[in-house]
């Protein structure tokens, strides 16, 4: 599919701003990566803090498709083709998903949200946001930071508000 150089440069700019390395993909072509990232960023948006984009979910997906999720490559290929078809039906004058307006992207998402491809993309987006950073996503532990997961190897009680309160009452 065609992605204008402006989109790629915008993506690169976004990554530079976020302190991330310039995009380099192992499985996906850069144009497809831009499109998938646009959807991932709708699944986990950047509202109220880092989202799929800032956590580098697209790098997780790219690597997953050449490792543990290699079997899903065909699902991505056909799923993305159908998604682009749906985009053309809904917005005949558009050229890419990533260049749609926010409202248009949401309309497109609602049109596919019950598909098995969307389910897979949702799963991979969440894994790339909250999974172990060694898989290429959850960059800078941005996903874990959002939910308040510390990711340490050991903890000492009290762990939470209520057990701390109970300990206090015992004193």
């Amino acid at each position, binding site marked *: 599919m065609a992605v204008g150089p402006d989109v790629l440069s915008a993506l690169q700019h976004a990554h530079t701003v976020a302190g991330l390395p310039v995009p380099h993909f192992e499985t996906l072509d850069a144009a497809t990566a831009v499109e998938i990232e646009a959807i991932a960023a*709708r699944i*986990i948006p950047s509202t109220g803090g880092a989202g799929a984009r800032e956590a580098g979910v697209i790098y997780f997906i790219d690597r997953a498709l050449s490792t*543990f999720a290699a079997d899903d490559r065909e699902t991505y290929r056909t799923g993305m083709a159908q998604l682009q078809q749906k985009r053309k039906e809904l917005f005949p004058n558009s050229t890419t998903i990533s260049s749609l307006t926010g409202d248009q992207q949401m309309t497109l998402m609602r049109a596919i949200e019950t598909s098995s491809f969307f389910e897979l993309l949702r799963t991979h987006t969440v894994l790339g946001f909250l999974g*172990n950073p060694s898989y290429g996503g959850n960059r800078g532990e941005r996903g874990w930071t959002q*939910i308040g997961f510390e990711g340490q190897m050991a903890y000492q009680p009290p762990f*939470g508000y209520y057990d701390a309160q109970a300990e206090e009452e015992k004193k």
Partner: protein
Amino acid sequence: MSGVAFSTTDAVDFLVLGAGAAGGVVAKELATAGFRVVVLEQGPYLHEGDYSHDEIKYTFQPGLTNDPKVQPITYRKSDADRARPMKAIEYGRQVGGGSVHFTANYWRFHESDFREHSLCGEVSGADLRDWPIAYADLEPYYTKAEYELGISGLAGANPFEAPRSKPYPLPPMPVKSSGVLFDRATKKLGLHPFPAPVAILSEPYQGRAPCVNCGFCESFGCEVGSKSSTLVSVIPLAEKTGRCEIRPECYVRKIELDDAGRAAGAIYFERNRREIFQRAKAVFVCANGVETPKLLLMSKSKRFPEGLANSSGLVGKYLMWDNGGEALGLFEHPLNEYKGIQVTRLIHDYYASDPKRGFYGGGGIDARFDFYPAGFALSGLPPDTPRWGSEFKRTFVTYFNRTMMLMAHTTSLAQAKNTVSLDPDVKDAWGLPAVRITFDYHPHDVATMKWLLAKQIEILEAAGALKTWSQPFDVVDNMPSRHLMGTCRMGNDPRSSVVNPFSRTHDVPNLFLVDGSNFVTSGRQQPTATIQALAYRAADYAVRAARRGDLS
């Protein structure tokens, strides 16, 4: 690792198939009693350093469990349906078996569990029977298991528990916020919460370090060796004797008989898929409630055309599994439930079956949080949460640290139509038949889960939950089952059971089966303590029989 290596042609005293919760115990008991033992294990031999806190590897992939890509499983609800590939069951597939990756709940059965037919009578559509043994027969072995493995808990704290000859060897684990909220709510409701007995060290024990509260118990191997798996407790003792050889990545396909109808050894595939025959004077199968009957059904012979030790026709029948509903609650302040072991408090108030409810069944309820970050966002949220977008994100971000779960562990009735059989069409990567599971709930199983779910919600509300929700307990939604019980049931009568009260098969005098397959009833799940008590008892019996010359 094993130092000793036995010849395959020289018959060892005992061959143990499966190095899990039961097999590890049996191997240790036999080797320390002076016998030469070979243990064959399907999975690899891993150690603390091989494990990690990797949610994707261990909960979204079969990191420590059976992999359906190489060992497919098929499932059907009833034998009128055609089975299709589905991961209906899951088991630990490594040295240590399920005791490596389990949540480590360690409940003894109650006295009533062994005689529910006498207490509750017939249940239509089920084969509810008494066990041929009583709690008192197992009590010394429960105690032995608790002390040899290292169990933390508080004796006497559960007013419904059966008599114990000794307290737990270790004090309970530190309580979490879920435990505190549960304690307060259940006491308010007149119930009796108590600290969870767990196979996790609260203090240093037998050279092993205590738990560091990292929170990665369920589905994970313990990186500091504090979870009391057979891998870190009894298997090293077995190997230290110099008489026990553990052979990992060995997949058994058949138990062979000699001309006299006694077990002569087993044929297995090595890692490189070369076939080996290991001779033995006696055989213990400890492969779990699904793999044990599968192996017997594959071990057909002229003498046993329907599968080894299957004169009763009951091998693979009466499969019971891990029933129970899940209710979740959101609270005002952070609980940080991802820290610490999964379960710290529970109740047994609803354990006993009560005819006043109008159905057979009961269960325990524990307070826990057994989600990891991605799993929670994908499957732990209230069902009315949007599946994507800013509201989806806001929900998992704000709920993760403020949610707890109440899980019920309930009865699963033995039904002859729930079976483990060999799939006639699907084969695994070794060319062996895939396991075919036929399973559906009994109506009383469902009634019990529904009845307890209302109690779970009531407790969450009494604890001050801002919002509550529950997970569906459709039989398919609840897969895979990890508690695999009942498929080679224990009894006195060879016509209605597969093994005798000491886990010895009625049909083959030097063949023992001990794991969840022996169970006559399901208890209230958490089968590991009972599996290991049965293993200690069976090994004790086998040692005495072997010394008398009664096995060869």
